[in-house]
């Protein structure tokens, strides 16, 4: 029997107030505590931008106290995946946070999300190998975005390291890797970024402009590309694909990153109904009110 771990990428979004978090909050109100009452998994994205203090992780443990089932997964800092320049110090700082979560019994694993430009070649494969060594004993998930990682050699490498490849659903642009969940070592990791094709294309164009040293054509909200609500049919298709990859899987992470306006949460609740075969899913009034569709399962 597979344990389905369905959640969102992050929980601190202002625009979730009203859509998920209640509007009038008392001083002691805490977003993570509230989140953990309804969902048992969260992916930490803040760790990608900054080296967090272990104290922060201790705070998370406190806020989810009493909910033994709760798990955090955390994105590796961009030094490891995008800049690909790091040393002992960076490893130590990262491990310190993981250790806190692990000792608290709430660590799901680390996610190495590589940029689209990170194509499979010798240097890339050496880098992934080194990363796996540097984070030995840490459950590692690898998310490559370039289609070359679908090649047999690349998949064997990732499998050999015991690191489940993370399957990402996003608009199919260029050589982006197609969505194909695959389990390794009894684990499966799926990230759903939404299918806002237009905004995604614009953001790729902006990124390319910045690389060329030019100014992006406009200053758009970088979150625009995650602004998407999966339709029930799309979720049904994704659920079928996930189900067909569940043979022998003990834990399957399904993380929604289409966070604007709480859409990730609405889709997460719908996905729980689909993957856990549940007619009813516990959720707060706020979200039922915001997303009428949810009333079918609320």
């Amino acid at each position: 029997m597979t344990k389905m771990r369905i959640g969102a990428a992050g929980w601190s979004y202002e625009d979730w107030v009203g859509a998920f978090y209640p509007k009038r909050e008392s001083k002691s109100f805490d977003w993570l505590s509230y989140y953990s009452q309804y969902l048992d998994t969260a992916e930490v994205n803040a760790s990608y931008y900054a080296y967090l203090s272990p104290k922060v992780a201790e705070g998370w443990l406190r806020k989810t106290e009493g909910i033994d089932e709760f798990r955090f997964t955390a994105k590796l800092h961009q030094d490891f995946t995008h800049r690909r320049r790091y040393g002992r110090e960076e490893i130590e700082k990262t491990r310190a946070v993981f250790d806190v979560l692990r000792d608290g019994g709430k660590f799901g694993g680390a996610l190495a999300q590589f940029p689209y430009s990170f194509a499979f070649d010798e240097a890339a494969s050496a880098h992934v190998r080194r990363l796996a060594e540097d984070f030995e004993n840490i459950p590692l998930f690898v998310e490559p975005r370039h289609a070359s990682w679908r090649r047999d050699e690349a998949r064997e490498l990732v499998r050999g390291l015991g690191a489940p490849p993370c399957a990402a659903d996003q608009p199919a642009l260029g050589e982006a890797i197609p969505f194909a969940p695959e389990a390794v070592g009894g684990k499966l990791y799926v990230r759903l970024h939404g299918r806002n094709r237009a905004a995604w294309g614009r953001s790729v164009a902006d990124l390319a402009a910045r690389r060329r040293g030019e100014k992006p054509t406009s200053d758009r909200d970088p979150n625009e590309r995650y602004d998407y609500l999966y339709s029930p049919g799309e979720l049904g298709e994704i659920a079928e694909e996930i189900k067909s990859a569940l043979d022998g899987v003990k834990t399957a992470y399904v993380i929604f990153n289409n966070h604007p306006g709480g859409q990730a949460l609405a889709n997460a609740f719908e996905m729980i109904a689909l993957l856990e075969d549940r007619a009813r899913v516990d959720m707060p009034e706020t979200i039922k009110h915001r997303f009428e569709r949810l009333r079918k399962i609320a």
Partner: protein
Amino acid sequence: MRTATIFHLDLDAFFVSVERLLDPSLEDKPVIVGGNPLGRGVVAACSYEAREFGLHSAMPIRKAYRLCPHGVYVRGHGEEYVRYSRLVRGVMEEFAPVVEQASIDEFYMDFTGCEKMYGSFLELATRLQREVWRRFSLPCSVGVAGNKTVAKICSDFNKPRGVTYAPPGTERLFLERLPLEDMPGVGKKFLPELRRRGFFRVGDVARSSVEYFAAAFGKAGVDLWEKANGEGSTALTVERERKSVSKEHTFGEDVADRETLEETLFGETAKVCRKLRDKRLRASGVTLKLRYADFKTITRSTKIPPTADDREIFETARALLRKAYDRRVAIRLIGVGTTGLAPDTGQAELFETERERRRRLLEAIDEVRGKYGFEAIDLGRYESRRERR
């Protein structure tokens, strides 16, 4: 002769059901799919609540609006219908050895010879219906009979959410009392002519002579007479449109040896890719089909960057096979399909020099195969096996 068992599954008010999944506030309301109520379109579908006002599909939408001005008129979400149709088809394929998709919301299944596996057909029909509801919240009706025509009439008999079974030998009895307008093929023109001649129920036609019907109505008359007597086709048309290119192989004897399976898969893949290249198509989806000795059939699919390359498609299909083949039951049939077909624009892409080179190589191979037959070149996979023989 073995009696055939054909199922017909029809999604109830399909477009409306999907619209209600997208917007639950449409529940219990008369819903009309078809766009602007003041426009020139027709009703694509309407809910049962709307039908009570005399609405039906294909009615001019303005007329519908006159009859039911308080209805909710929606433009429709074609993409979602296609998506759900595919999902439902997937469920059918898990159960039935052969599935024909007759339209976006209708499926025929051939369960002939499967009675030992599934026990009661009535139970199986209910199970299919439940499964579609449980997984996708879509209501449907199922008809079971010895041929397609009667199965379709059965599924229509007790809509919505009906299950109707006409066991072999009871078809005539079942049809007898039905009004003629319930017969497929009896439309607005045919019906008054039949009535004028005194035919009102199916039984009236069945009891008449085929010669009379041939003389009075020609081929249409003979068809109707045969249908009225419970006859009908049992041949399912698989693949109505070319939305996929696939090949499959049924083994003379069931096979459990993985190497043989992979080799066969390789051969079938090569044929599929040849066909893709012939038609100048590239596929962006690969489906593996396995039928076990006990007739359980599974399909596994995945997406790939568009290609018609033997190696890429084979590697994908093989990966699916390695992942899927986990039962200790021999395989009766193996097949590979390609979907998401799009014209091969022939443009060399970035990072793709190797692929491009292979594409030209494969085109050259096809030319040789065209001249000397398919077995002339086999890309070096059969070699090892042949030497051992």
